[in-house]
């Protein structure tokens, strides 16, 4: 139905998946308005490319791959992104300091993401925020599945070390 370029059917798909795509982009871009603009662009790109969707993988995995590409393109082009990222970086640094001063405070996402590099951040968001499988993340990021697994492992170790999470603490 959608493959035959039915705008109404595609609208239904947007309604179903917009929350996940916008949440993904908000976590990446750290700015709601920018993320929503990117989400709109992402769905427009998805509409243009809908004939390339084979239907074998999950639709959300396919759309999130487009969302990630849209984000990367925007990042390359936009100065606004750099400004937001810089500002978000300062906020994350502040959050990290607060976290160190008050270890009993529940770990928030900004603090947690601040401990990771960009690639780890993207893959952890794909994995834990979007619930994509290693294979889907591998397709979205065009990295081998083994590399995705090792990046997740490394990121978890970083978080564990950075926040001094004891093995028994959450067991």
């Amino acid at each position, binding site marked *: 139905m959608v493959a035959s*370029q039915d*705008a*109404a059917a*595609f*609208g239904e798909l*947007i*309604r179903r998946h*917009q*929350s996940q795509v*916008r*949440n993904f982009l*908000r*976590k990446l871009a750290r700015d709601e308005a920018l993320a*929503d603009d990117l*989400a*709109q662009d992402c*769905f*427009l790109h998805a*509409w243009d490319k809908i004939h390339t969707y084979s239907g074998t993988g999950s639709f959300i995995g396919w759309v999130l791959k487009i969302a990630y590409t849209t984000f990367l393109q925007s990042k390359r082009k936009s100065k606004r992104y750099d400004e937001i990222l810089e500002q978000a970086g300062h906020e994350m640094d502040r959050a990290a300091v607060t976290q160190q001063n008050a270890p009993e405070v529940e*770990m*928030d*996402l900004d603090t*947690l993401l601040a401990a990771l590099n960009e690639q780890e951040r993207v893959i*952890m*968001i794909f994995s*834990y*925020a979007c619930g994509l499988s290693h294979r889907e993340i591998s397709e979205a990021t065009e990295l081998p599945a083994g590399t995705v697994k090792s990046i997740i492992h490394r990121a*978890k170790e970083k*978080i*564990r070390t950075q926040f001094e*999470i004891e*093995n028994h*603490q*959450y*067991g």
Partner: protein
Amino acid sequence: MKSKIINMADKTSDAMDRLLASAFKSEPIADDGFSKRIVSRIRRRIWINRLALPVAVLVGAAFALKPAVQLVSALLPLLNVVPVEIASAPMEFLPQMQLIVLGGMAFAAGITLLKVLEET
């Protein structure tokens, strides 16, 4: 002993996964017209794509009409040197050419109109 270590590692990994899942968890975002805005942008783009060819034909024809007429009027005196039997054929054809162009435009407009009616 080995299985105990593996179980411990799994338990730790599960606990870490739970912690991360809760940290990354986010509330669903309400649609609030988001999908409608995109669908209307998509419909607008469909319209633009549909209209692009007929509009391009019309604009092209409008630009080409004047030079074409000038060319034909420049060529007309040359027809005197051509034998009457041969010259008469294109002379009959020339008025039909305008009709063909107009007919083509009307056809393109008609197709567009039909698509519009189909869409609405």
